[in-house]
């Protein structure tokens, strides 16, 4: 990618700390618990503040579309913080998936139409790819797109999308559907005819998912007709890189929580962190966290350098490492806490749920192993 505004190390530190300060105030455990009980699943007030005070929705959107034009390194820094704080927000679906799908499409008209609204926080987006099986596989796309009129806007979509993150609340839906030329990307407005979205019960209340039904729904082609397969691969690389940063932040918090408890909890007359069985659990979590952080941050560095082949490998490797690291840290955190860690009142289960949902979001271990191996030529 070219035209990325680079941040110096100190600017990056500043970005991290301003996001952390904001989230400590706005996404406390109490706030997260409150918001996951609501229908919407996020606090619109906080979303507006993220846009107005921190300009986060426009972070990676180029300046010509109203954003600040930063790259994956900056985005990763923000996502590590949102992952730590279990932030419930349209940020992931809107920015990591939606905005990046639009940018990856190379469709300047569509970018000009939608990105300014995303950048200023007035438009939220969702990306609808997977169907019954949850797979991100172009071959499994059954939703059809038929041409009904002239130009890019003259399409209608019919089919059912599943596991759509923020599919109920999003203003703009970006949908992969099959034309005679193959899978292609389309834009659908929230109020479009024949569009219904129903919330799915989810393991992880901090990430909402929906089933979206399209019945002859008017849609606008984004990018080239038939380019959806290649586009899906590119979007997925960017999505798992963002996810890897979130996972790193979550794993980091689990480790901090476990070590803080191990330092203060006393049994058998000593802090439990002085027992090697507990100490080594924490050390194992640290090893996993360091691998996760290195792989997530380095994938972002490679993305910003613009080496697409190396990025595809690094992104898929980061997805493997970070998925494993977060799941491990979230599970071991509960183990270090013992009984208290298994209670509803303790936040450990929120991270456990998020860790598992993140690991399986884009297909799970078999899918990510195969994607990584494929990129290595296996």
């Amino acid at each position, binding site marked *: 990618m070219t035209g990325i505004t680079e941040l110096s*190390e100190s600017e990056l530190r500043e970005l991290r700390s301003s996001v952390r300060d904001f989230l400590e105030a706005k996404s406390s455990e109490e706030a997260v618990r409150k918001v996951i009980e609501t229908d919407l699943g996020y606090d619109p007030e906080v979303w507006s503040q993220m846009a107005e005070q921190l300009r986060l929705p426009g972070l990676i959107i180029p300046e010509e579309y109203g954003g600040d034009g930063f790259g994956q390194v900056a985005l990763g820094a923000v996502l590590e913080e949102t992952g730590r704080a279990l932030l419930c927000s349209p940020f992931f679906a809107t920015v990591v998936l939606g905005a990046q799908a639009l940018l990856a499409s190379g469709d300047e008209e569509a970018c000009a139409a939608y990105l300014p609204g995303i950048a200023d926080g007035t438009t939220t987006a969702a990306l609808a790819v997977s169907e019954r099986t949850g797979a991100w596989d172009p071959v499994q796309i059954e939703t059809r797109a038929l041409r009904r009129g002239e130009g890019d806007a003259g399409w209608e979509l019919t089919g059912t999308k599943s596991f759509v993150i923020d599919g109920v609340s999003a203003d703009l839906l970006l949908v992969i559907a099959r034309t005679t030329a193959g899978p292609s990307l389309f834009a659908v407005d929230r109020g479009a005819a024949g569009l219904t979205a129903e919330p799915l019960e989810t393991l992880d209340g901090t990430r909402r998912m929906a089933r979206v039904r399209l019945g002859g729904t008017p849609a606008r082609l984004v990018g080239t007709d038939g380019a959806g397969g290649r586009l899906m691969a590119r979007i997925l690389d960017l999505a798992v890189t963002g996810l890897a940063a979130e996972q790193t932040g979550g794993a980091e918090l689990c*480790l901090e929580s476990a*070590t803080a408890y*191990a*330092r203060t909890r006393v049994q058998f007359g*000593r*802090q439990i*962190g*002085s*027992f*090697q069985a*507990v*100490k*080594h659990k*924490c*050390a*194992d979590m*640290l*090893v996993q966290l*360091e*691998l*996760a952080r*290195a*792989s997530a*941050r*380095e994938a972002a560095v490679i993305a910003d350098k613009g080496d697409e082949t190396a990025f595809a*490998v*690094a992104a898929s*490797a*980061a997805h*493997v*490492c970070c998925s*494993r690291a977060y799941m491990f840290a979230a599970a071991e955190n509960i183990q270090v806490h013992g009984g208290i860690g298994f209670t509803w009142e303790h936040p450990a289960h929120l991270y456990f749920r998020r860790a598992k949902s993140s690991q399986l979001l884009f297909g799970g*271990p*078999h899918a*990510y*192993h*195969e994607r*990584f*191996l494929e990129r*290595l*030529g*296996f």
Partner: protein
Amino acid sequence: MAHDTHADAGDLASFTAEVRAFLDAHAPGGTAREDKAGTFVWGKGDDRMAYFSSDPPEEEQRKLEEARAWQRTRYENGFGWITGPAQYGGRDLTPVHDMVYNAIEAEYDVPDTGVLSVVGLGMIGPTILAHARDEIKDRWLPAMYRGEAIACQLFSEPEAGSDLASVRTRAVRDGDAWVLSGQKVWTSVAHHSRLGLALTRTNPDAPKHKGITAFLVDMTLPGVEVRPLRQMTGGADFNEVFLNEVRVPDDHRLGEVDGGWTVALTTLMNERATVGGDNGGPAAAALTPERLYAVLRASWTLDDRAVRAQAAELLADVMATEHLNTRALRGMRAGVTPGPEMSVAKLMYAQNLTCAAHLVTDVFGPRAIADSGEWGTYAWSELLLATPALRILGGTEEIMKNILAERVLGLPKEPGIDTRSPFRELRRSGTGEGAA
């Protein structure tokens, strides 16, 4: 600019050019190598996959002479001791310059100097520099960095492994000398060494860390006996060293009497710097995607879902470990003190090689347990047998995890009486009582 913590970019650029000019002119194997991994072809070349050397004695001797000669060339051209002081033949540059030199040299075909550098030049040299008297430094440091005097570490003992401060080799003062008696074990390169850095017990009535004294022992002195120690691979890369009333002059004492633990810490600190960066070596090829792909193809397991999952997890860890090293190095160049990356990389290097050796031998099945003559199959058994050592040497996995948990995560140490009681009252292995 002696011993600045970091170097500026312009300075590094001219240093880099100087290093390249030196290597272009002097590297015995000629010009810079192309991508090493790219040259791998299944069935071609040497299929040995070993961590430890298993060369016959004459071959080992030949490689030793090559290593000495290359170290001498480095020394004569100002690259023998990049971080060392000029008065002992050093360059007074920073650890970053040292890393830059190593990274560039890795692109050239030059002799492996591990036998001199890993322990002697990497760990013992800096310890002598920090703790020896001037006349001892004058006498030994230039000889070491010219490649003449190899040095080893006489630290571990049968009863002092992870608990190094429990050494019981005795040193008793006799006029202006000390008489050393005891047994050392797991001593790498002792059979080639002119010098050994010995930790000895000089005061058994003090707590264990406070009764140790360090000596630089001339390995040619009467009473020093080196016996090869055959390890589970069948080879003998380590030694037992017996000290039988060896008279060491007091001027070869490092640090204070009973102050040897401070000396040992200097050595160990440098060990971590050396071992953490150990990502190359003869076994590095075992961890490349090209090699693993070829193995899966040769074992008809490219379609095996379970094998593929293991290979993916392994290769993702290998890549993350490389990223850890890359990021630590980049940080150090920018003047950032490294965090736990190097310790994690060391743990992962051992784990990745262990995992690779098991994965590959498992998919080869019987071809990994009996030599059918087929290229690149039984050869892996040698690496497999070396893997337990990787999780022990340079600090066992368990000790490494204690260090990470205590120093990085701030978890409390295990409470014990062993740091407060007199050494002679501590319990010994295989006894129920106090000892010494």
